[in-house]
């Protein structure tokens, strides 16, 4: 027993030490940079920008006192990552990996996040857009594609995304080449490459690196000023008499308002990175141009390109509203549906509330949810310019199935005896409330204060009474999670708004 108390005491002292380190900054450096700098990347590990960020982080080790750590925050075509950076303090420890695709992301999603909220630090590479085809098509030049399009009225171009850079490149190419073709969105890069390997389409709009190791694929042309040193046989649009430049750039940005010293420091490191031999190797291997642009050049480029992107998105009919705003707030609709459904249940059970059993309540809940979703599908409006099946189709199939099934459930379980069990959901409800309180409190007071409180409170609620073991587990867990997440995985657990 005493041994346990001693261990509990030691765990607690370690915990206090951790708090001191985190909040009082004991043993930490004071001048910038005092801790690792995160690079937030908007796509999953293994994507082009993820690779670039990781390569930069690797090379930067040679030139920086602190580490650069890549974090992936994928979702909503980059909005999740952008929002994440804006949620962080502008203290120079959170860098955002930016790509040209963000221009359309912001416009198409009509998001509250604006590119004006960012300070673009530096561009690193430009990755030329490329028209890629299957060897079996024997497209040797852009003119071959044009000839083919004249013969084949339904020439298909593919790539990932609608309104994506690749889609816009297709639109630009059609304009420049005077071609009429169809765009089919294959959702992801790999699926598009598979389709072009099967020769399903005439052209795949992608980047030169997509053809690596695939001898079946030909790059017909790249849309850059000059040829890539590592692909000397691939001609540019310009050489073939078509004036078209379109490259995906990738660089870095801070949230606006970052201290000048941080901007200078990071710019300095990046400048050294692009001079490194390893960086040149990386660019050659991934078929991109190293293209360092400082803050001013980079920002001017973006301002210019925003206008152009807007023009093409408009042309494609993608800058429209896809969902009608409901005249009544959705929350009211939901309430009305729920009330109506449960009134119907009440009537169905011959006006006897007590006869509504658990299955019927669940059935009623699902019925309400399905009706609510159905109402929302009525608000969809699809521009006539795009060739697709309705976005409402599949949800409606599931909705109607659920409607039928829940009605069957309600009818079937009528008059089912309600088996009274001695179960009581009270403790569960308290635990759920505790979890929610933990979630809210964590954002205010931080992970390290709230977690031991939550763990011990939950243990107490569940009738655990050995206090020494409670302390060992609660404080031990916090120390464990600090080392796993903060130290090993470089994920900063929230310290709380009140303290930072």
């Amino acid at each position, binding site marked *: 027993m005493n041994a346990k108390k001693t261990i509990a005491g030691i765990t607690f002292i370690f915990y206090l030490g951790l708090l001191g380190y985190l909040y009082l900054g004991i043993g930490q450096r004071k001048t910038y940079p005092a801790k690792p700098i995160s690079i937030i990347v908007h796509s999953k*590990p*293994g*994507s082009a920008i*993820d*690779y670039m960020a990781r*390569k930069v982080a*690797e090379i930067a080790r040679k030139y920086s006192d602190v580490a650069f750590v890549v974090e992936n925050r994928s*979702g909503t075509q980059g*909005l999740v990552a952008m929002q994440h950076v804006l949620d962080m303090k502008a203290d120079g420890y959170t860098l955002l990996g930016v790509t040209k695709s963000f221009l359309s992301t912001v416009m*198409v999603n009509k998001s509250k996040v604006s590119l004006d909220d960012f300070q673009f630090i530096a561009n690193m590479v430009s990755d030329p857009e490329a028209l890629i085809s299957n060897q079996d098509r024997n497209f040797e030049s852009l003119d071959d594609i044009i000839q083919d399009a004249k013969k084949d009225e339904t020439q298909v171009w593919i790539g990932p*995304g*609608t*309104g994506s850079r690749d889609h816009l490149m297709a639109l630009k190419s059609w304009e420049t080449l005077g071609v009429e073709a169809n765009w089919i969105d*294959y959702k*992801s890069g790999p699926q598009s*490459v*598979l389709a072009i390997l*099967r020769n*399903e389409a005439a052209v795949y709009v992608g980047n030169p*690196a997509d053809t*690596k*190791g*695939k*001898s079946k694929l030909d790059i017909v042309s790249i849309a850059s000023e000059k040829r890539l040193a590592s692909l000397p046989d691939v001609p540019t649009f310009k050489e073939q008499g078509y004036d078209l430049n379109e490259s995906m750039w990738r660089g870095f940005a801070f949230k606006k308002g970052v201290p000048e010293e941080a901007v200078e420091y990071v710019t300095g490191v990046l400048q050294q990175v692009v001079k490194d031999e390893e960086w040149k190797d990386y660019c050659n*291997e991934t078929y991109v141009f190293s293209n360092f642009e400082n803050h001013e050049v980079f920002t001017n480029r973006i301002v210019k390109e925003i206008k152009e992107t807007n023009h093409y998105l408009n042309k494609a009919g993608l800058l429209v509203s896809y*969902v009608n705003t409901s005249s009544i707030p*959705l929350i009211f609709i939901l309430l009305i549906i729920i009330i109506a459904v449960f009134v119907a249940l009440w009537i169905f059970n011959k006006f006897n509330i007590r006869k509504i059993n*658990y299955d019927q309540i*669940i*059935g009623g809940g*699902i019925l309400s949810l399905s009706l609510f*979703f159905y109402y929302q599908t009525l608000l969809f409006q*699809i521009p006539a310019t*795009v060739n*697709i*099946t309705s*976005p409402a*189709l*599949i*949800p409606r199939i*599931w*909705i109607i*199935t659920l409607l039928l*099934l829940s009605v069957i459930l309600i009818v079937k379980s009528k008059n089912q005896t309600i088996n009274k069990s001695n*179960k009581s959901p009270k403790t*569960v409800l308290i*635990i*759920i409330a505790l*979890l929610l309180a933990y*979630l809210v409190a*964590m954002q205010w007071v931080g992970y390290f204060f709230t*977690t031991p409180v*939550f*763990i*011990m409170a939950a243990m107490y609620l*569940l*009738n655990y009474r050995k206090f020494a073991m409670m302390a060992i*587990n609660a404080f031990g867990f916090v120390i464990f*999670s600090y080392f796993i997440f903060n130290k090993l995985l470089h994920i900063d*657990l929230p310290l709380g708004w009140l303290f930072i």
Partner: protein
Amino acid sequence: MGILNDLWLGLQEFGQFLPIMMMFIGVIIGIMVGVLPGLSPSIGVALMLPVTFGLDPMSALVLLVSVYLASNYGGSITAIAINTPGTPGAVATTFDGYELTKQGKPLHALMTSLTASTIGGLVGTIILILFSVPLASLALSFESYEYFALGVFGLTIISSLAGKSPLKGFISSGIGLLLITIGFDTQLPFSRFSLDIPDLADGITFIPALIGLFALGEIFYSIEKGDNKKVEKTAKVDLTKTLPVKELLKLKTLMLKSSVIGTLVGCIPGAGGTIATFIAYDNAKSSSKHPEKFGKGSLEGVAAPEAANNGSVGGALVPLLTLGIPGSASTAVLIGALMIHKLNPGPELFDKEPGLVYGIFVSLFFANIFMFFVGLMGNKLWIKIIAAPKSLLYPIILALSFIGSYFIQNSVFDVGICIAFGVLGWLLIRGDFPTAPVVLGLILGKMIEENLRLSLIKGDWTEFFTRPGSLIIIVLALVSFFMPYIKKKLMRKAN
């Protein structure tokens, strides 16, 4: 004997100090990654990536492949011990694995899963070595029509997951299918059903939902039942028998079959190991002599999905190495690693770097065997954790689920998703609705919708039935859907 020659070359490349060290490290880290909820194999592989920049290509790839392999096994440990699938591929393992734990037989489940994972991994590797070229053409032949059919096939498995009431099983899967339509439309750049909540614009994050449904739902339900108050030493854990060898030997054909299923489905880009585990589970149940034991603690129900899950690792490497196409999120990271080391994934790799390719194959072999022994040692530790009083264990699991959900995107909203799905899971379990079909719906919904709509743009619906590939899968789907009912009828007649 070109292959033997190449394998010998590979063995020489692999049999050096650094690659072998990397295999050891990779397996141990992989198991840890699998055990922590929220850390999926692909995140684990990505986390190891920076480390590999400084290594030679062989050691780098061995490290990543070992992490990938071992994390697929690691996920099953928490699935069995605390009903928390550490990785999506371990969902099907919870069905019977956790039941066994509740019955005081966690060691049986853990040993079965370890053995099945190892065999799955080995079989996957052998298939990869011998048949990667024909399998590559299988992977390539999958068009949207076949993907759609495969998604439907996956859905039909509900009929065997549904348990007592098929109606409730269908409702559960409908909930999953409907909820996964929240978020971006598969063709147009706009968000459906997201109620203008920015965090919901991209839909429900899968892993927090999974953790909520299984871990939280189960904890809530068992607290309600008052399990935590019982002073029972949770598991009268049977520590005497360390190796249920006899029972494992009975499962050998099943493990082999499931491994093959896992490898085949795993090699289809984008389909992935998770679907393979469900298909293997369903297949094991319908071919079992004791289908009634499934879902109630059947060792077969643990062996099948685990063998398939680790078999899918070998499968996923097929399109990567032969076509240069990443078949899963983890292999997407591997492809980048290859490129960084100036290697071009694709058919040329076999000709240019046979030593490297076969070195990876050889390392997979040894990694599997090493994983088995690490797993054996680990089992003793897991058993101790399982035997802790529930009132001590539950709060820790809740805190772990919390941080696991937060970690994926540093998102408080995701923790909210986890809690919400926990409540959903609890409400469903209370009413005898199975939760597994919800997950099945969440996994398959996007695949079905994306590929149905892509198919309808490219051609028309008749192609689902005129293309041999999709026709075969659709027929399989119909058989798998009606099989349980036909069997029941036949059984009744026989009685």
